[in-house]
């Protein structure tokens, strides 16, 4: 499903973010990527969604060769990977419904299909009653659930969640993780980037630990060890 081999990323200012990273993730896995700030977790996410290109090495996601992907193909890749960010990244001047439907509209989905899918994903994340609200009218947890709903509309095989609980209290954080687990049960691969020890230990899933841009630990049913 995801294959990262020998990937090194050095930014244009000379800062090394990742060093010879090798990682293989199977379809349907729930993988937590943990590590302190500045260890390269977010860089790995950016590489997976082709926001950045590796300086060295090779990445393939669901059959796409990210290393050699054309700029014009990036939108198509992003429609197949659901991405959830710490700061939600919602369109502030669009309602919850419009934020979700936008992801379908840009993919050329027809209106009757959009009218069918958006209420379904809103129900999955428990926001059926909030479709007409703007992001500023929602709590942090509700905004993150909107972002998850948006990431689900294309029925992606992979969801990458970059610190999705970073701006949330423990109750909302638990709710978000619970939604991600539910999505994983339907067969979607989940990559959860976090530094929340409690969540990682509670999940009892595969844990990949990054330190100084290198993978220092990778264990099934692992724990947060740093």
């Amino acid at each position: 499903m995801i294959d990262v081999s020998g990937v090194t990323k050095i930014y244009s200012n000379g800062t090394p973010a990742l060093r010879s990273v090798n990682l293989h993730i199977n379809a349907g896995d729930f993988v937590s990527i943990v590590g302190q700030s500045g260890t390269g977790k977010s860089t790995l996410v950016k590489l997976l969604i082709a926001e950045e290109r590796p300086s060295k090495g090779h990445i393939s996601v669901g059959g796409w060769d990210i290393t050699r992907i054309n700029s014009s193909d990036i939108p198509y890749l992003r429609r197949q990977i659901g991405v959830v960010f710490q700061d939600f990244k919602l369109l502030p001047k669009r309602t919850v419904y419009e934020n979700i439907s936008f992801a379908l509209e840009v993919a050329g989905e027809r209106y009757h299909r959009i009218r069918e899918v958006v209420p379904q994903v809103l129900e999955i994340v428990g926001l059926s009653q909030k479709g007409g609200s703007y992001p500023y009218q929602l709590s942090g947890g509700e905004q993150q659930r909107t972002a998850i709903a948006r990431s689900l509309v294309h029925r992606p095989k992979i969801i990458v969640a970059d610190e999705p609980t970073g701006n949330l209290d423990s109750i909302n954080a638990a709710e978000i993780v619970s939604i991600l687990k539910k999505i994983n049960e339907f067969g979607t691969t989940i990559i959860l980037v976090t530094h929340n020890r409690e969540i990682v230990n509670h999940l009892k899933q595969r844990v990949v630990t990054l330190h100084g841009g290198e993978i220092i630990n990778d264990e099934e049913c692992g724990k947060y060890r740093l």
Partner: protein
Amino acid sequence: MHMLSFLRVLKYAFQDLWRNIGLSFMTVFILVLMLLSINTLWSIDILTKEAIGAIKQQIDVSIYFVPEATDKNVEEIQTYIKLFPEVTNIDLQSRDQVLQSFRDQNGSQAEVLQALDELGQNPFGPTLVVKTKEPGDYKKIIDSLNVPEYKDLIEAKSFDNHGAAIERLQSIINRIEQGGIGLTALFAIISFLIIFNTIRVAINTQRTEISVKRLVGASNWFIRGPYLIESLIFTILSVAITIGIVFFALRWVDPYLAVVLPDGFSLTNYFKSNILMLFGAQALAVLVLTVVSTGLAMSKQLKV
């Protein structure tokens, strides 16, 4: 599918316009100000040319013949002057016409008329009134008459009296034209910078939106399209508003111009008969300006 994409891009454009109504209003407002300034400069240029043309029309050179000059002499000189390509018109006034004209001009001065009567004969010779294309051409005509054959036939040439004035007028005309070109160029640069920065600020405020659109898989067309359509809407709105204001203002200006300028010159008529060229060129310029500004301002955001 292409039609569906286009309709969605159109929908986003109108949504963005409405949801950023303050910024949209400011952009159109600045574009209208720029266009009004251009139209004002344009009008001044037209009026200057028209006024200069009117002044030029009023300038002529008169060649006064001695009373003894025969019709044949006058005809010969008239034919000679006609050969100059610079000459646009020659009006011959006979001795009687000159006398009558003199009487008309001095009708209130009894002593002058009495002295004229006491002479018992017409003291005036015929006169040629010559008009040329440019005031500078008069000197050439007069110089050509400063030859010994004509010395005894020509009593006076009025150019001698107008020469300095004509040269000064020519110098003023040249300076106005040079100043006008400089001012227009300066104003065009200032307008470009203002509008470029206005649009850049507008795009920068929507930087987050653009990056989010990219991250959810929007293609460049879906991101750029609404801004390009907004540019088109800004252009249409600003040009339409400018046309309205310009024609409204001309209704008030025209009556004053009719008094000052001859032949009932009307700026309204000028703008009406050149409306496609004048406003078409302005619309094209504004469209290029907004599209280029949008493209440049977005190029950075689209690399996400």
